[in-house]
């Protein structure tokens, strides 16, 4: 079974190994990859890495400064900040990844249809996107999240909705360029219909720029979701979410600098990690400038 699979897909496997080798050779890609891998590792193995319960309150140790017992200190309810960051990675990464998948999927399809069909459909779709874009993203996400009800999943949906136009506009632009290329005419000459062309020729050609945008949006999504948590529309209080921790910790910044600083550093690192990984991935995955 496996040997047969290996035989049939030997070229794909070769290609994958080649991609991994390119990844290892590119220092910034490697750095981004390691950061993301570390974050994922932390999220998955949080219970093994820390012995503290991230939501257990112990008022006796409130706001203690970093020490060997609590490397990142404790918050105003005596909870260990390091362990909250580790568990928080699960939530923040889930928000980022889900938002990007939802927004990227819908946005890319909408944009490709808009660009490919053109004329009135294009006008209609893009004007709707302009309406969404004309709101400040945070305000619109806030209104949507409030309408859907305070819940982490609703917050994810709201942020994803706000991010759709970014992808739609990018993919529409790429589609306009790609659809004039000769291979689209060739595909039509071979009897392909519109949806087939969009799926098999246009979207794959847009993929590399979508990946790069996705990494940028991922960081922004984490920040917006964090803001939603701050006003109580995203992650609900005992849940350790990085953005919520920064927001609450802000009040204590003057005297207890560690509270807001460490979660903030993790948001920063994650966003940077995704950005440089995405940038490098674009160079690696693009077949036109590969090797």
């Amino acid at each position: 079974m496996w040997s047969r699979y290996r035989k049939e897909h030997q070229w794909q496997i070769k290609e994958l190994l080649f991609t991994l080798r390119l990844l290892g050779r590119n220092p910034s890609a490697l750095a981004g990859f390691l950061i993301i891998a570390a974050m994922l590792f932390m999220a998955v193995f949080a219970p093994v890495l820390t012995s503290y319960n991230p939501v257990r309150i112990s008022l006796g140790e409130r706001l203690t400064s970093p020490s060997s017992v609590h490397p990142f200190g404790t918050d105003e309810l005596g909870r260990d900040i390091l362990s909250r960051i580790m568990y928080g990675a699960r939530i923040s990464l889930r928000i980022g990844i889900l938002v990007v998948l939802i927004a990227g999927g819908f946005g890319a399809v909408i944009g490709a249809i808009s660009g490919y069909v053109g004329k009135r459909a294009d006008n209609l779709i893009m004007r709707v996107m302009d309406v969404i874009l004309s709101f400040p993203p945070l305000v619109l996400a806030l209104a949507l999240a409030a309408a859907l009800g305070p819940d982490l999943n609703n917050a994810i949906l709201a942020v994803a909705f706000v991010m759709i136009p970014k992808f739609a506009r990018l993919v529409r632009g790429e589609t306009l360029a790609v659809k004039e290329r000769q291979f689209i005419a060739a595909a039509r000459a071979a009897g392909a219909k519109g949806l087939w062309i969009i799926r098999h020729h246009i979207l794959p050609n847009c993929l590399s720029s979508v990946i790069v945008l996705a990494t940028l949006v991922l960081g922004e999504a984490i920040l917006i979701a964090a803001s939603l948590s701050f006003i109580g529309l995203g992650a609900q209080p005992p849940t350790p979410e990085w953005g919520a921790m920064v927001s609450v910790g802000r009040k204590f910044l003057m005297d207890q600098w560690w509270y807001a600083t460490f979660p903030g550093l993790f948001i920063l690192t994650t966003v940077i990690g995704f950005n440089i990984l995405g940038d490098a991935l674009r160079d690696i995955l693009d077949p036109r400038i590969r090797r």
Partner: protein
Amino acid sequence: MTDPLLEIKGLSVRFFTYQGIVRALEEVDLTIGRGEILGLVGETGCGKSVMARSVLRLIPDPPGKISHGEILFKGEDILKLRPRRLREIRGNDISMIFQEPMSSLNPVFRVGNQIQEVIMLHQKVDRRRARGQRWRCSSRSRCPIRSRFSESIPTSCPGG
């Protein structure tokens, strides 16, 4: 003589540009019988490609338009076909090989998979069967079944 395979009657194609109307084709008549091979010769820009493209209705509209005439393929007027029937004919009954092989292939997929794509478009077969057919085709045309060429992406192939 039996029915002609392809018959073009009074075909005129115009392009409406900002600089005015370009009359690319004017009253073209042409007949190709079954088993016949026809070569069309002419200087650059005289409309050979526009004619070939209009047979498959691939004239970009706007700015181009087939203003009048008819194109009969096995008695059916291609200009009046429903989109569905037109797609059945394209690539199955009438094919077109474009001038630039480099830009006619999608740069993100392997050449072989794009050959296979045409089979998948016209026969209701899954990926695996289509690949089998593609291999049979390539052995019939004496191309190596798994040549470096068919498993590589277009940009890494020698042009032409």
